[in-house]
């Protein structure tokens, strides 16, 4: 069996089905918070944490995640649905407009903060520059990260 821990829960999947981790998350685990954008690794909306590292789930075969731990946008909020500090900071600074890029952007920020708990502006730019936001809300994202770092 294909065994993957997703958001703290152990899942088992068909090991033979050809599909990406993104497809598995959305279609088999029912976790549609992770978005399917370009499918080519160019837009960033499918970003999840794979063993704690920000990863484009459209560029990973489901089988590659066997034995790994995945965290998706659904895995961030607390048991009562309270938002985690990065999500809350995105809300408070208005870094969400249409919202389609937000799950990927927020997971990218989590990946960044795990590596660099106090990132420089350049590090924030590097971590989010591969994430396309067509509402052009990038400046708000810098503010959101600054706020999240303060709140954490």
């Amino acid at each position, binding site marked *: 069996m294909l065994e993957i821990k997703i958001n703290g829960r152990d899942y088992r999947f068909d090991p*033979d089905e*050809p*599909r*990406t981790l993104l497809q598995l998350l959305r279609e088999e685990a029912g976790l549609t918070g992770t978005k399917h954008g370009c499918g080519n*690794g*160019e837009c960033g909306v499918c*970003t999840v944490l794979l063993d704690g590292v920000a990863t484009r789930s459209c560029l990973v*075969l489901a089988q590659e995640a066997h034995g790994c731990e995945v965290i998706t946008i659904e895995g961030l909020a607390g048991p009562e649905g309270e938002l985690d500090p990065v999500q809350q900071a995105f809300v408070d600074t208005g870094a969400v407009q249409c919202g389609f890029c937000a799950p990927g952007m927020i997971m*990218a920020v989590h990946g960044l903060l795990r590596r660099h708990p106090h990132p420089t502006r350049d590090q924030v730019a590097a971590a989010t520059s*591969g994430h396309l936001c067509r509402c052009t809300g990038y400046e708000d994202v810098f503010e959101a990260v600054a706020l999240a770092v303060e709140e954490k």
Partner: protein
Amino acid sequence: MLEPYRYLRPTTLQEASEMLCLQGAMALAGGTDLLVEMRERKRKPPVMVDLKHLTGLRGIEHNQANIRLGALTTVTDVLEDSRLTARLPALKQAAEVFACCEIRHRATLGGNVANASPGAEFTVPLVALDAAVEIWGPEGPRAMTLSNFLLGPGQTDLETGEFVTGLSIPLTPDMRCAYRRKARTRGMDLAAVSLAVVAHGASRPEERRICLSMGAVERVPPRPSRVEAMLSGVRLTRELTAHAGQALIEPLAPRASSLRASPTYKKAVLPVLLRRLLEELDLMEA
């Protein structure tokens, strides 16, 4: 969306090589190029051999005479090794413009060279740095120069059952290097054209040796030996550098069908990149 495949996860070199002998088997490392090609149905490998669980293939070894990069070393690993980026800034410069953060975490140096793209970000500086490719296969280990390893777009010297295990870069006294590319945007894009410059014995012009390579101009990143000879062992004036820039582009005929830049653009840019990199490495006469 994806064609059926058998996914295999070897844990020893021997096992990996046996699996890669299966009909149609392909090595999978970071997968950041391969999955795009599978999705576009350019490749339909019936067997995927995931090399990521082979031990000892990830990491950067600093030796007296060389630096060894394991094939599974990621682009992020390069950026985070401050000793490496200080000794070989060209690799840092390649890593910094490589795709995006998430792809840098996953893409490997072994994959970058084995994929044999004519404009591959690391291949260009590595060719100029005289890097050697370490290979494992049914006959055991072997090594060869990266220049000889690359045969054409997507084509390498790898035989059935063989895969890249590492790269080694010889270190010489007083070495300097730099890499620069032009792309359509400052964001995520592949190189439209690129140049790497390496100077051995950099501070003494009479003994200095200059090595060059270019990306996205020929089927593989070439070593322009005639231009290297023009620039080696002499004081570098603006006139000489301009002359060498012309000699650099004179034999080139980049394909006109490139999506990223016209042949005219590439040939206009390369002499400028050459002068700028020589200046940046402080190799030009005042």
